[in-house]
């Protein structure tokens, strides 16, 4: 067996044993998670199907007998926009995943000291990066593309073509992201103090320029078909012929329309560029991986003990002075360990950037839709978005908190501190930190939407309730399914408990959004009397409140009980 074969074989055996270990898990848990995954996949499929039908109908009405079809005009652009977004997301995702995989995973010292050439080691780890960063794209993209194929009555060749296109496509952002990581580590590792501020300033300038000079596109006015031109043109900007996303979109579109020659050309274009980029990334790895690795280990040695005076963390003790012990020490420890782990705060900043983009793109009214309807829908969609961002925060950063106590949990186990207190601390830590962001986001976005008092109250009240509920779910399930063996929070999250937390959070958001839709849309669209609407509002909020109490109390109680009875 070659070293590359050994690396892949080991991962394959690990996957087999991990899947087999599911047999040892609770049947209820496995059934629940599987059912939720299947439901989510079918939900996405159905939503995509309905979305494509809506587009078809909408554009058929607008275009009338202009001699153009929906597919001709919009579909290729829609696919290109989707592929471009995927390209950008996967590049960033690979940048982070490759740092963890190439430089921070526990097996790397063992692999680096073994007689494996750097290129082989890099390629073995690259396969892992691609799989780890791209599985979600396959899971979320497959229902969309299947719905597209069915709705456009694509020939059978479309389906295998999509699968064939996927692999070379995901290699391109993986090669780009990994190459960026290799270069960043090489440049930054040995000179952190000099390079990091310059890099941070560069990123800040880029973000400011991006936000301050947006290319605004007015939404189409339904009464004026000519307003579509701007939207269609803007969507076309993701169709630049040099973009790999366009090769994917163009190829898939060609396969859907039966143009196999064009599809084949796009596939070869993707595959050849993927191979070239992977080759270049491997050459780069051969040159810079080992020096970067060595400097990073050296930087870890240098970092040593920091002076206790000065710096941002010195203020932490003052800020938490009002908290009683042991909560104060636990909160200070959680904040410090979070900010000293680059993979944690870099992903947090990414999420924060998405929130900023979201806010920058909000507007108070749209010419095409009357103000009342826009505000009702705007409130509802804004709330759903705020809740989804909150779910991302709790699923990614809060759920792993207890697991990240890791092998050090015995310190807490021996301390005069009950597990109940530990869970309570994590819960209130979660509520206070996530509320700062989500209530801030909800307030700012409501102001941008120019909502009236009722809608503002509904927004803030719902976000506050959701903060309590999703924190309860994340902390409770984190305590119920702790993984003290894993140091990587991304891997903790991808376990069964993390998946269950994510799906239950989504379920909560779905139910609450549905109830809010009843409250907001019936009020704005004036379909019932004021009295009946008040009663309906009260009933809906009673259900939201009940649901919030259950989502908070039950997982926390189960989690506390589990930690109290488990052997540390």
């Amino acid at each position: 067996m070659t070293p590359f074969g050994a690396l892949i074989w080991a991962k394959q055996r690990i996957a087999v044993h991990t899947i087999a270990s599911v047999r040892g898990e609770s049947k209820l848990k496995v059934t629940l998670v599987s059912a939720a995954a299947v439901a989510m996949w079918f939900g996405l499929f159905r939503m995509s199907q309905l979305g494509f039908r809506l587009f078809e109908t909408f554009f058929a009405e607008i275009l009338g007998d202009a001699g153009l079809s929906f597919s001709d005009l919009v579909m290729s652009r829609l696919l290109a926009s989707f592929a471009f977004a995927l390209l950008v997301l996967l590049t960033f995702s690979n940048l982070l995943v490759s740092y963890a995989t190439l430089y921070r995973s526990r097996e790397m010292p063992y692999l680096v000291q073994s007689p494996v050439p750097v290129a082989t080691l890099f390629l073995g780890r690259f396969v892992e990066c691609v799989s780890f960063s791209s599985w979600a794209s396959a899971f979320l993209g497959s229902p969309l593309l299947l719905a597209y194929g069915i709705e456009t009555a694509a020939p059978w060749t479309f389906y295998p073509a999509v699968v064939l296109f996927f692999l070379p496509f995901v290699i391109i952002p993986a090669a780009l992201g990994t190459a960026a990581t290799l270069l960043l580590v090489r440049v930054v590792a040995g000179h952190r103090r000099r390079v990091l501020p310059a890099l941070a300033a560069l990123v800040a300038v880029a973000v400011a320029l991006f936000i301050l000079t947006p290319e605004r596109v007015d939404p189409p006015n339904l009464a004026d078909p000519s307003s579509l031109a701007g939207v269609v043109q803007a969507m076309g900007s993701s169709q630049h012929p040099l973009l790999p996303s366009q090769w994917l979109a163009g190829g898939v579109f060609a396969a859907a329309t039966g143009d196999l020659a064009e599809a084949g050309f796009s596939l070869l274009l993707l595959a050849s560029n993927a191979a070239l980029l992977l080759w270049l990334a491997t050459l780069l790895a051969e040159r810079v991986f080992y020096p970067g690795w060595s400097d990073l280990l050296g930087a870890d040695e240098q970092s040593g003990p920091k002076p206790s005076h000065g710096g941002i963390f010195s203020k932490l003790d003052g800020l938490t002075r009002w908290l009683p012990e042991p909560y104060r020490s636990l909160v200070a420890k959680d904040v410090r360990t979070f900010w000293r782990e680059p993979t944690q705060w870099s992903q947090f900043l990414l999420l924060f950037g998405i929130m900023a983009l979201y806010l920058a793109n909000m507007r108070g009214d749209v010419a095409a839709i009357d103000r009342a309807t826009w505000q009702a829908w705007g409130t509802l969609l804004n709330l759903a978005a705020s809740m989804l961002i909150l779910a991302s925060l709790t699923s990614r950063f809060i759920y792993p908190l207890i697991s990240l106590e890791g092998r050090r949990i015995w310190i807490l186990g021996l301390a005069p501190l009950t597990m109940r207190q530990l869970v309570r601390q994590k819960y209130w830590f979660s509520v206070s930190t996530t509320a700062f962001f989500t209530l801030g986001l909800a307030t700012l976005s409501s102001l941008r939407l120019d909502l009236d008092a009722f809608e503002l109250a509904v927004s803030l009240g719902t976000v506050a309730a959701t903060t309590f509920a999703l924190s309860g779910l994340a902390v409770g399930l984190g305590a119920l399914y702790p993984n003290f063996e894993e140091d990587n929070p991304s891997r903790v999250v991808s376990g069964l408990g993390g998946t269950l937390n994510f799906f239950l959070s989504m379920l909560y958001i779905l139910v609450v959004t549905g109830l809010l839709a009843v409250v907001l849309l019936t009020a704005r669209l004036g379909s019932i009397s004021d009295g009946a609407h008040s009663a309906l509002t009260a009933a809906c909020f009673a259900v939201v409140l009940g649901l919030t109490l259950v989502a908070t109390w039950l997982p926390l109680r189960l989690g506390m009980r589990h930690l109290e009875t488990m052997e540390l």
Partner: protein
Amino acid sequence: MIETTQLHKRFGQKVAVESLDLDLATGEFFCFLGPNGAGKTTTIKMLTGLIRPTSGRARVGGVDVQQDPVAAKRLLGYVPDHPFLYDKLTGREMLRFVAGLYRMDVAEFHRRVDSMLETFELAQVADQLVEHYSHGMRQKLSFACCFLHQPKVVVVDEPWVGLDPKNIRAVKQFLRQRADEDGLTIFMSTHTLSIAEEVADRIGIIHRGRLLHVGTVEEIKALARRRQEHQLGGSLEDVFLELTRDEEAYGP
């Protein structure tokens, strides 16, 4: 088999290892002693190719670790203080993985694997997942992984952690036997001075990155006796504590 020439490592302003010169012969059992933070692990990391020296060179079996790392590492076996093992592989699968990394012939692997499992008393649990192993069993598996490809040089970093007295004796005897019978060169970093005293052909004492003394156990003890007017207690522990307490007074 291990040769370092003016091997130097600096982390920023801190000198971790200062101009280290070592020359270990074939079949030599060398124990590297020093207090925490003395530079033992940094030296091991340079010998195993985990980090680059700031200057100087390290050779294993005549091969420069930086110039031809793959060839050098092929001659080397390494047991770290906290060995990495894949929890979701069985012991046998872990060994097969290691065989792949070292490009071992399949027939050779099958011939060696059972003897390794027997030697380290892992045959009964070879097909269980490593996650079910005790700490001692993990340590023994890491030894089996190290010796599977029949290295010419073995670097061992504090190998006794988690082993019971019976296993400590077994590992000690195994290492001594390999050095005597197979000509294996062993570079062992340890804090367990009594074991070093028992098994080492030569001992090196490092403190604050500088190699203070190299010699046989008797030479080190004699050196301390000569430099101090009064006689020490006689054990290596006494000598070690005295040398690393006040090394400025003695000098290398």
